[in-house]
């Protein structure tokens, strides 16, 4: 996986995870992967919906020690 950037959104509340994800993904090229760590429970659905709407692909998602981790490929 071509992970270009890791975004630490741990501890941040809605709407910050997607606002930060948007800022981060703007800096990337199509095909690059953005890794996001979040603790807001809503982020799981939020980031999945946001990726779909923006044409990005969630390659992987897992939860480790209450941290939600996403790997999102820019579309």
């Amino acid at each position, binding site marked *: 996986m071509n992970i270009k950037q890791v975004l630490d959104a741990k*501890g*941040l*509340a*809605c*709407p*910050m995870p*997607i*606002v930060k*994800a*948007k800022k981060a993904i703007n800096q990337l090229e199509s095909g690059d992967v953005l890794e996001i760590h979040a603790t807001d429970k809503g982020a799981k659905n939020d980031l999945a919906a*946001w990726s779909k*709407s*923006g044409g990005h692909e969630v390659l992987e998602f897992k939860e480790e020690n209450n941290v939600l981790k996403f790997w999102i490929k820019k579309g």
Partner: protein
Amino acid sequence: MTEKKRTTIILFSGDYDKAMAAYIIANGAAAYDHEVTIFHTFWGLNALRKDEHVPTKKGFMEKMFAKMMPRGADRMGLSNMNFAGFGPKLIKDVMKKHQAVPLPELINMAQEQDVKLVACTMTMDLLGLQQEELLDDIEYAGVAAYLADAEEGNVNLFV
């Protein structure tokens, strides 16, 4: 890329919590790559007030209104459990604990994300608010300009 989607929000309420909900949705929509407009009317205009005193020429009624309305987003009350002004202090403490973003920062963030903030000029006249008292870099318009944005809108909310 297809044409950008559009979100329009009418902020009528001057309550801290309701304005916060409106601005969270606006920031979220901007992150969703929507073009976002928040149209502030009636008490919602207070969210756009500068928090410092701005000297202006006003009549008696307008001065009264200016005194009785909150000067800026941070001074707005809650729609529920306001407890004569103590409620906002409580909720701001709780927000800090949960790292929720306070309203003035949400408004800054919206401006950074190019959310279009519009003040309704008709209600500005009614409440005696002048352009100098409101934040910089906002737009002034009426119902027609709002409808022009809203008729192309995909999401449209009244708060």
